[in-house]
């Protein structure tokens, strides 16, 4: 093969180059601060594995604080909550996970249906509003988010905004509205519209929504599109707006939030919850971790974090966020959301 002789020096050089990069990487990696604190006590009281679909930095801060307080070493598996829920379903009782920290009730509900979750210690459940946790007592609410209408402040529509989520079906919104129906927080709103309007009314509402709206794949894309004026308004959870503001800088924000009234199907507060896996070999430590998540120090971390969710422990407030009465009385018992999912598929939004 004629090319071989020339190839080898090149391949050799490339390999040498790669090794240098690797070695340099290892070299500079060593002195870098490790994720886990070097304190000897961490791990002395056992270890825990947490599957987390939550905001990575906030969970990192919570875990570090918990480790220092208890000496329990925590391994965090961060991912998309739906991926993690599907993974837990595949793993069944063989899962290495002790705790699942989710983003929305449906992913916890589906695991509960399969009897994969253990009962949460009553004293933990008692710390947060009763409505913020699972009716079965198998997961506890940790933080909350409010559904809101985000609108572009430069658009002429900014003055006559819809006052109810039901108004989103009005024909004058055609082409000005954005939705992200594949996001897990869209289904609960649909479930509430079904409750308010009945099935047929909800079908009519969803069909009109399909005609009016541009469909986005995620709340992140939707809020970015509203902020730059691609669509005039859209439905998102409040924290997306704050996270976007953090990233683009206040000077580049061309949008604002408007909350629906708590009585409106769109005026809902949803929670992020945590659960202990029934198959956990470290039940006591897992319960300890979940109890910690709703304790005052943890809720203070939530209240000052970049995740911008509302803490649920009474008495702890995120002073940066507007007060929201719904936080004291969130809506989590919305079933498994199957009817909403079927309805969205029926009208072709999904």
């Amino acid at each position, binding site marked *: 093969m004629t090319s071989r002789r020339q190839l080898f020096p090149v*391949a050799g050089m490339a390999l040498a180059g790669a090794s240098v990069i690797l070695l340099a990487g290892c070299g500079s990696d060593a002195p870098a601060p490790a994720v886990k604190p070097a304190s000897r006590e961490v791990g002395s009281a056992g270890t825990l594995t947490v599957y987390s679909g939550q905001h990575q930095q906030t969970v990192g801060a919570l875990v570090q604080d918990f480790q220092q307080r208890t000496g329990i070493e925590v391994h965090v598996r961060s991912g998309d909550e739906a991926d993690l829920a599907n993974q837990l379903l595949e793993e069944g009782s063989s899962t290495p996970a002790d705790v699942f920290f989710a983003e929305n009730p449906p992913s916890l509900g589906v695991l509960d249906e399969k009897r994969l979750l253990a009962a949460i210690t009553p004293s933990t459940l008692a710390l947060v509003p009763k409505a913020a946790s699972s009716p079965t007592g198998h997961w506890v609410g940790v933080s909350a988010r409010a559904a809101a209408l985000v609108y572009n402040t430069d658009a002429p529509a900014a003055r006559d905004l819809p006052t109810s989520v039901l108004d989103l079906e009005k024909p004058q919104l055609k082409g000005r509205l954005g939705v992200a129906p594949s996001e897990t927080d869209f289904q609960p709103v649909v479930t509430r519209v079904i409750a308010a309007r009945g099935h047929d009314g909800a079908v009519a509402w969803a069909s009109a929504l399909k005609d009016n709206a541009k469909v986005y794949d995620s709340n992140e894309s939707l809020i970015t599109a509203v902020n730059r004026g691609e669509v005039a308004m859209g439905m998102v959870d409040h924290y997306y707006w704050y996270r976007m503001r953090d990233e683009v800088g206040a000077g580049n924000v061309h949008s604002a939030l408007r909350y629906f009234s708590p009585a409106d199907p769109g005026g809902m507060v949803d929670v992020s919850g945590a659960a202990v896996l029934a198959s956990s070999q470290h039940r006591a430590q897992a319960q300890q971790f979940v109890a910690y998540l709703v304790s005052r120090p943890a809720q203070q971390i939530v209240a000052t974090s970049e995740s911008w969710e509302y803490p649920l422990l009474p008495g702890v407030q995120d002073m940066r966020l507007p007060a929201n009465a719904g936080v004291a009385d969130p809506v989590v018992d919305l079933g498994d959301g199957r009817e909403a999912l079927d309805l969205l598929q029926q009208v072709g939004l999904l």
Partner: protein
Amino acid sequence: MLARATLTGGRAAARPAAAAAPRRPAPRALTLGVVAIAAVLLLPVLGVVVQAVSVGPRRAAHLLSLPLVPELLRNTVTLTAAVTASCAAIGVGAAWLVERTDLPLRPLLAVLLVLPLAVPEFVAGSGWVSLMPRVQGFGGAWLVMTFSLYPWVYLPVAAALRRSDPALDDVARSLGAGPLRRFLRVTLPSVRTAMLGGTLVVGLYLLAEYGTFAVLRFRTFATAIFTQYTLGFDAASASLLTLVLCLMGVLLLGGEYALGGRTRHPGARAARTATRVRLGRATPAALLAMAALVVLSLGVPVGSIAYWMIRGSSTTLPSGSVVGATVESLLLGAGAAAVATALALPVAVLSLRHPSPLSNTLERSAYLVRALPGVAVGLTVVSVAVHHLRPLYQSTALLEAGYVVLFFPLGLVAVRAALARVPAELEDTARSLGESWFGALRRVTVPLLLPGLAAAAALVSLSATTELTATLLLRPTGVETLATQFWLYTSNLAYGAAAPYAAVMVLTSAVPVFLLTRMGLARS
């Protein structure tokens, strides 16, 4: 799923002499080994079938008759057709300009035109959207996918042009055929196999991709599968829909075969360089077109990474975690590359040296996994490992195994292309001198194959280093790669913090890509 595929060689440039020579029957150990390899590679497909069967006919009919399904199918088919066609046109056109004309800056272009392979598609997608929000829908998906994927056609076609004998072209010229006629009647047929191989890889990638299209606001059939996973938590329904993708994958594989992707045409090495076509007054236009191609395919994603590193408020620099994730990604990629390449060798040997319906089927079946969404592959591996290979679950070894299953086809394509150029007569001679088949393989074939094996390893490592979906499911808890960190930050809108991970992904991938182009350029 980040697809990576074809290679320096075009696939079926098997020598007619080799095909015509009376072949020895395949050694039983080789056949059994390849059957075992194929069985492991088909596990995800089997997993999908088993899950899908549990759905039942009524639910299946309901799922397939949902109102959005026809639109999604149409989107998948039209996008696959459009992107493979444009990739073929751009790939062949660019390869012809670089290999057969007197275009200036050819050596530089030969590298720049392959470098988009170093940019993971999801990084390219985010890049286009953040710089040019209007790039979305069908047009956006077509544009972004074409500019990310055309190198998979360019690479094998350029290699085939470099190898092919210029004599035919000279004869056509002496008979008075103009450049266009010669291109259509001589050049194009000579690169058809390479071109089809490249478009097959592109097509299979498009069937299974989800994340990049989501960013571009274009919904394909994979969307319906993801809806079942993420909103329904219904792996069975998702698997049923995945079977539809499998079927489309089989059609693509069959189509490529029918169109002559396996034609054995003379793959004679060029004894001399082809006379280059003088572009003359067309030179500036051609150069401009190539510059535009480089800017669109490379400039936009790289520019957007730079933009976010400067503009984004969040930052992860300087950070030990970037270094840690880089080391993790590179080690994982290297491991997967070594194993996938080693396994590709026996499959290539069996299919090329001992062609039979069995060996052809085994070889073809290895490509099918590319039509499955990464989440389907990942969850099947999770299911098998957690219940039957518990000690391996969430180990680095299992993640590597996942990469091997996902990217084996890319390695196989490269090894086959290289093996097709090693004369079988050399092995026959070794055997007639008393070597066993294994001895002949080890002492004659493998040494001649080394550049092809290196190319295969480069392609696999390139893909494994930037894989996201299966990595999230299979990695050991606590292990973060460049791709998972990029994803975790972008999903929190922290583009500034995500950008360094994208930058390192592109930089580290550039090493194997550069290696690929050097292999291609090496001449006697």
